[in-house]
């Protein structure tokens, strides 16, 4: 049983890669694996069915392009299909010609609307806007208080009154006009889609406030039901997009694919942690790449640029691209990553990271151990771990306060990581005899781009 969709596709990669030709039987076998992986990833059954059929159709018709192996071609098609479903271009927020721009958040109970509302307000502040938060959830005890506290944290005023959701929303927009706020973010109560009274109520809130954007807030761990919920809300409102929350967990997030496909609206934002800053616009190409094990390297680079030395990061990325990624580089990356904040969100983005390392590295305690081990190595050992014999291993272990087995473990895992980075095409092959993926100009490019 695989841990994640990314791991599952890594496995498919490896299995398909060995073959020179992809027969009909091979294609069917590959598609079965893809179906299983997508279902295990919580993609809706009907969406999986359609997706597998489109992939089969394209893969059967595709002429064998000599630049790629058949396996790479299948993966490329899967990547393209997923990216197309996830929305292609990122959603660009535009503003109402006559302010305020109203954003309405709706969804099931517990999906993370109140947190998302505050984070969205903070995002608007970062964009140079002046948002007003409207607390229209009068159902959940202390929901208004919760939003007030969060509003203070992110520097956005909160409006509410103990009347009814439609009145609060309407008067909130009026208040924004009165005090000159150019954005209004309305938090509403969670509701089940089969409660017709409550669905009517939220439709009334929308009618009263004419939102420019109505977003469905969707928990990343949602299973097959995501489609039913999205369809119901879209029918009542309609929706302009979704906000995917709790992406810092290990839920595979197939719900995102399903909702995008069935409702035909993009994922606008994702929430990636518990801090107000853990909120970003959704990048469809990167999500598809992440699902396929290509990792979300660009997001990592972006975040790195925001908070630390861009030159160092750029150098590291360039080294990776040129096929050089040593323990020294890894150590430097760990240092950089520590400065970015809680690791779990970032580590998930590293391409081809073996699942043991991905899950282990989430534990910040073991990061410290890894760093200590690397620091106890000589530059020669970091450059070429193959020279680490028994006596060196003992020395490193003693120096870092670990055991020789831990040193061995790190070196092996790191080799795995390098192997996967190379095979995913992210990193050029190390040895001249290895298979290279070349485009016409002779430049080495990663397989899935």
């Amino acid at each position, binding site marked *: 049983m695989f841990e994640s969709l990314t791991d599952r596709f890594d496995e498919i990669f490896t299995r398909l890669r060995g073959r020179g030709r992809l027969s009909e039987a091979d294609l069917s076998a590959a598609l079965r694996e893809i179906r299983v992986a997508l279902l295990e990833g919580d993609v809706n059954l009907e969406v999986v069915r359609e997706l597998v059929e489109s992939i089969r159709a394209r893969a059967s018709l595709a002429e064998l392009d000599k630049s790629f192996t058949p396996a790479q071609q299948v993966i490329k098609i899967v990547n393209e299909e997923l990216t197309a479903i996830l929305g292609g271009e990122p959603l660009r927020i535009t503003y109402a010609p006559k302010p305020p721009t109203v954003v309405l958040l709706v969804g099931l*109970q517990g*999906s993370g609307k109140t947190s998302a509302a505050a984070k969205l307000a903070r995002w608007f502040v970062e964009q140079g806007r002046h948002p007003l938060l409207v607390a229209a959830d009068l159902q959940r005890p202390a929901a208004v208080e919760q939003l007030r506290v969060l509003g203070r944290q992110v520097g956005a005023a909160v409006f509410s009154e103990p009347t009814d959701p439609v009145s609060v929303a309407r008067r909130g927009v009026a208040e924004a006009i009165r005090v000159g706020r150019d954005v209004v973010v309305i938090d509403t109560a969670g509701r*089940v889609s089969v409660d017709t009274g409550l669905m009517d109520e939220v439709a009334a809130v929308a009618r009263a406030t004419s939102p420019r954007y109505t977003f469905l807030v969707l928990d990343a761990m949602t299973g097959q039901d995501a489609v039913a919920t999205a369809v119901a809300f879209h029918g009542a409102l309609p929706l302009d997009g979704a906000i995917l929350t709790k992406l810092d967990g290990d839920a*595979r997030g197939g719900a995102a694919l399903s909702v995008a496909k069935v409702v035909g609206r993009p994922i606008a934002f994702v929430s990636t942690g518990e801090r107000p800053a853990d909120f970003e616009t959704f990048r469809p190409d990167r999500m598809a790449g992440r699902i396929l094990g290509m990792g979300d390297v660009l997001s990592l680079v972006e975040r790195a640029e925001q908070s630390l030395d861009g030159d160092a990061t750029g150098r590291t990325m360039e080294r990776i691209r040129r096929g050089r990624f040593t323990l020294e580089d890894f150590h430097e990356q760990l240092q950089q990553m520590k400065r970015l904040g809680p690791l779990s969100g970032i580590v998930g983005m590293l391409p081809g990271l073996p699942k043991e390392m991905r899950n282990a590295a989430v534990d910040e305690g073991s990061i410290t151990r890894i760093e200590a081990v690397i620091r106890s190595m000589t530059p020669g050992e970091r450059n070429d771990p193959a020279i680490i014999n028994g006596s060196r291993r003992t020395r490193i272990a003693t120096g870092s306060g670990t055991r020789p087995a831990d040193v061995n473990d790190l070196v092996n895992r790191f080799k795995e990581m390098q192997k996967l980075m190379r095979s995913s095409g992210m990193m050029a092959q190390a040895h001249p005899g290895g298979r290279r993926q070349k485009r016409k100009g002779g430049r080495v490019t990663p397989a899935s781009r």
Partner: protein
Amino acid sequence: MRVRRHRPDDGRAPAAPAPGDASASPSRPVLAGRLGRNRPGLAGGLARLFAGKVDETTFEALEDLLVAADVGLASTGRILAALRDAVRTGAVAPTPEALVAGLRAEIVAGFAGEDRSLQRAAAPPSVWLLVGVNGVGKTTTVGKLAARESADGRRVVVAAGDTFRAAAGDQLASWAERCGATLVRGADGADPSSVVFDAVEHAAARGADLVLADSAGRLHTKTNLMDELRKVRRVADRPPGRVSEVLLVIDATTGQNGLAQAREFTNTVGVTGIVLTKLDGTAKGGIVLAIHDELGLPIKLVGIGEGPDDLVAFDPDDFAAALTGV
């Protein structure tokens, strides 16, 4: 179908069930009406199911049914293999109707012989700790349990163990006030273990029967937060307290990630039972079947709405019927 709304400030008792609502008895308030809402999209599959003959497409339709309910491929495979055996040996007749009945029976059989009652310590106070990831309904469930236990004549202390979420203490205070339970809370950001400890001490000193301890939602992948929870359990289990239930709250809309949640929380704090929440929506909660299969955790309670009475005992027959509702 009306979901009763309870506005915190109005002070009124929850509305009595409407006169024609025959299913709303005290022990099983509107459960039957709230489960098993069929969703669009499966209609084609179900029609195939009842096309008359039993063949491979019938089993495919059954697989679709279970997968669409989040039961997952592994448990679905196990259940259908058992069903195929039953058809082969003649225990189940080869008709679609018999197959569905056989499917329900297979699901129900998996829950046979379990003790799903809520455990109490030999000597009070018992401590029931509620755990789970963010947004699943822990605080609301604590509130409902407080209401229920108080109504049954027990003296309840509620520990506001979620010291992270803004206004979590206020939310719980509203529930505690309504049923007359004592609330013990700490400052925002306080150590949750100390809040739970204070609650247990308070309960022991006052001769209360039960401490209901809420906890902050936490993703099971966050090691430091799981370590924190382990400590909370340890502290809550020190005399005079005795943790007799660690209830993992699972949202009925959860997909396969629910399995990872159950594994990790069990490894960390030793889960004794599951509370399946939000079953009043369109989701079928099949993930608890997978959890039960893999880990054997009893499903003790089911949440079917946001009001104090919207908490019922898990019933395998009702669950199987709703899951396979055709």
